[in-house]
C-alpha cells in the first residue's frame, strides 16, 4: 500500500476512535435521559424462572468471569443476587475462573451489605477450584466434598446455607454468568446430566452461540450483554449501571451504523468513479 494511503488509513482510524470516545463521553457528561425500552423475552424468562422459586430454594450461581468483562457481567450478577435476596432464595456461588474470586467477593459483600444478608447463612461463596468440568462433575456427587471450605475458609459441613444440599441435584436452578464457553460445560455436565434447569447471563459476543440451546430448552433464559443486564434491572424496577449505560450505547450504536452506511456510500461512489475495484 502506498505511504500516503497508509497515512490516510491511520488518520481515518484515529478520527473514528475519537468519534467513538466522544459518543460515549458526551452522553454521560450532559446526562442524557435513559431511553425507554422493554425487556426482551429471553430476559423475562430468566426473571420469571427466579421469581417462580419458593423462598428458601437454593440457586447455584456460577460466576465465570473476571475483570475483563466486568462492565457487562457485573450488573447482571448484582441484579440476580438482589433478586435472589428479595425472594429469600439462598445463592450458592462458585467459580472455575482463577482470576474471579476477589471480584466475586467484592460483589457478594456489596450486595450482602445492601440487603443485610450474612455469608454462610443467607448465601455462600464456595470459591475457586481448578479442573473446570471436573468441578461440575464432582459437585454433581457432593458439593461439600468438592468444597470442604468456602472462599473465606469457613468449613462447608453444617453450613446453614448448604443445609439439605448434598449435590448439584439438590439446587433448584443453575445460573451461569460467563464470559466464555463455560456455559456449555455447565449445560453438558450440570443441567443436562442432572436435569436441573439452567439460565445464563453472557457477554454479547457469546450470546449468538447460546441461542440454539434456548430453542431446545437446555437453557431456560438468556441475559445477553449490557442490554440483558439493563433488561434485568428494568424488571427489578431499578436503574443501575446497565440501565444508565443504555443511552450511551444507543448513541455509540447510532454512530457505528452511520459510519458503516457512510463508508459503504463512499465505497460505491468511488467505485462508480472508477477509483475502487
Amino acid at each position, binding site marked *: 500500500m502506498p505511504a500516503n494511503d*497508509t*497515512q490516510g488509513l*491511520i488518520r481515518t482510524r484515529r478520527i473514528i476512535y475519537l468519534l467513538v470516545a466522544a459518543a460515549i463521553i458526551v452522553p454521560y457528561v450532559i446526562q442524557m435521559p435513559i431511553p425507554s425500552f422493554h425487556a426482551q423475552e429471553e430476559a423475562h424468562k430468566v426473571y420469571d424462572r427466579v421469581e417462580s422459586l419458593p423462598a428458601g430454594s437454593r440457586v447455584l450461581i456460577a460466576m465465570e468471569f473476571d475483570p475483563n468483562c466486568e*462492565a*457487562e457481567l457485573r450488573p447482571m450478577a448484582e441484579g440476580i443476587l438482589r433478586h435472589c435476596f428479595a425472594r429469600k432464595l439462598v445463592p450458592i456461588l462458585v467459580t472455575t475462573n482463577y482470576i474471579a*474470586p476477589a471480584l466475586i467477593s467484592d460483589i457478594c459483600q456489596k450486595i450482602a451489605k445492601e440487603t443485610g444478608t450474612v455469608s454462610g447463612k443467607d448465601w455462600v461463596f464456595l470459591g475457586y477450584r481448578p479442573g473446570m468440568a471436573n468441578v461440575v462433575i464432582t459437585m454433581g456427587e457432593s458439593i461439600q466434598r468438592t468444597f470442604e471450605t468456602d472462599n473465606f475458609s469457613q468449613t462447608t459441613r453444617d453450613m446453614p446455607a448448604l443445609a439439605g444440599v448434598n449435590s448439584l441435584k439438590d439446587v433448584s436452578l443453575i445460573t451461569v454468568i460467563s464470559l466464555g464457553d463455560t456455559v456449555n460445560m455447565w449445560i453438558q455436565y450440570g443441567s443436562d446430566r442432572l436435569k436441573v434447569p439452567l439460565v445464563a447471563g453472557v457477554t454479547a459476543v457469546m450470546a449468538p452461540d447460546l441461542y440454539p440451546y434456548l430453542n431446545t430448552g437446555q437453557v431456560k433464559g438468556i441475559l*445477553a450483554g449490557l442490554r440483558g443486564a439493563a433488561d434485568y434491572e428494568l424488571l427489578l424496577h431499578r436503574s443501575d449501571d446497565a440501565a444508565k449505560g443504555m443511552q*450511551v*450505547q444507543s448513541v455509540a*450504536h447510532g454512530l457505528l451504523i452511520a459510519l458503516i452506511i457512510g463508508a459503504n456510500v463512499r465505497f460505491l461512489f468511488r467505485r462508480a468513479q472508477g477509483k475502487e475495484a
Partner: protein
Amino acid sequence: MEPQAQTTESPMRRTVEAAVMIALGTAFVVASILCQKDSLFGKNANDRIEAVGIIIAAALTLIMYSFLYRDNPLFKIAENVYIGAQLGYGAINTWRLALRPQIYNPLALAPSNQALWDALVFRSVPILLGVLLLTRLSRKHGWLSRYSYSMMVGWGAGMTILVMTDTNILQQLQAAAKPIQAGVTADAGWWANAGAVTGALTVLVGTVCVLFYFFFSIPHGPVGQRVSKTGIWFLMLSFGASFGYTAMARISLVIGRMRFLLFEWLKIPQ
C-alpha cells in the same frame, strides 16, 4: 488488534509528540490530585489506599488506550504489567484456594495419623500424576508426563463423547426436527401462531440450504446453486448477527472503562 504501520517521522514531529506527552502527563497528575484530594489527603488510611489504586488504574487505562494513537513504550510496560499481575494473582489464588487446602494442609497439617493415612491413600495418585506433568520441563524425563496426559486424554474423550453427543447433536437434532406447527397453541393469538410457523419454516429452509451449501460431493446444478446461494444468505445473516453482538460487547467494555474514568477517577457527579 492489528498493529499500526510504523512510519518514518521527522524530528520536529517527535519533539511535538514528546511535548504533548509531557503536557498530558502533567494534566493527569493535576487532575488526579484535584479529583482525589479528599481521599488522598484525608485521615482514613483505607481511603488513601483506594485513591492511589484508582489513580494507578486510571493511568493504566489511559496508557492502554494510547495504543489507539500508536504503539509506544508506556503501552508495552502496561501490557507486561497486566500479564504479570494476572499470572501472579492467578498463582497466588491457585495456591490459596487449591494447592494449600487440597495438598499442603491434608498432608503437612494432618490432625491425626488416621487423617494423614487417608490423605495419602486418596491424594497420592492424583498428586503423582500432577507432578509427572512437570517433567515436561526436562528433555530427559519428559516422557513420564505421557502417563498423565494419556489419563487426561482418555478420561476427557470418554466423558466428552457421550455428553457432547447428547447435548450438542441429539438434542439439537430433536429441536430441529420438530413439526412446523409445534409452536402453535390454542390460547395464543393468530399473529403469534403465524409468527411461530414462519419461524419454524425459516429454520427449516435455513438449515437445509446451509447444509446443502456445505455438501460438495455432487456438482450443484442450476437449482442446487440457488439453494446454495440461499444458504450463503443465511450464513451472512448469522455472521451479521454475530458481528452486531460483538460490536455491542466491545462498546459495553469501553462504556465500563469510561464510567470508571468519569465517575470514579474524575468524580463527575452522576
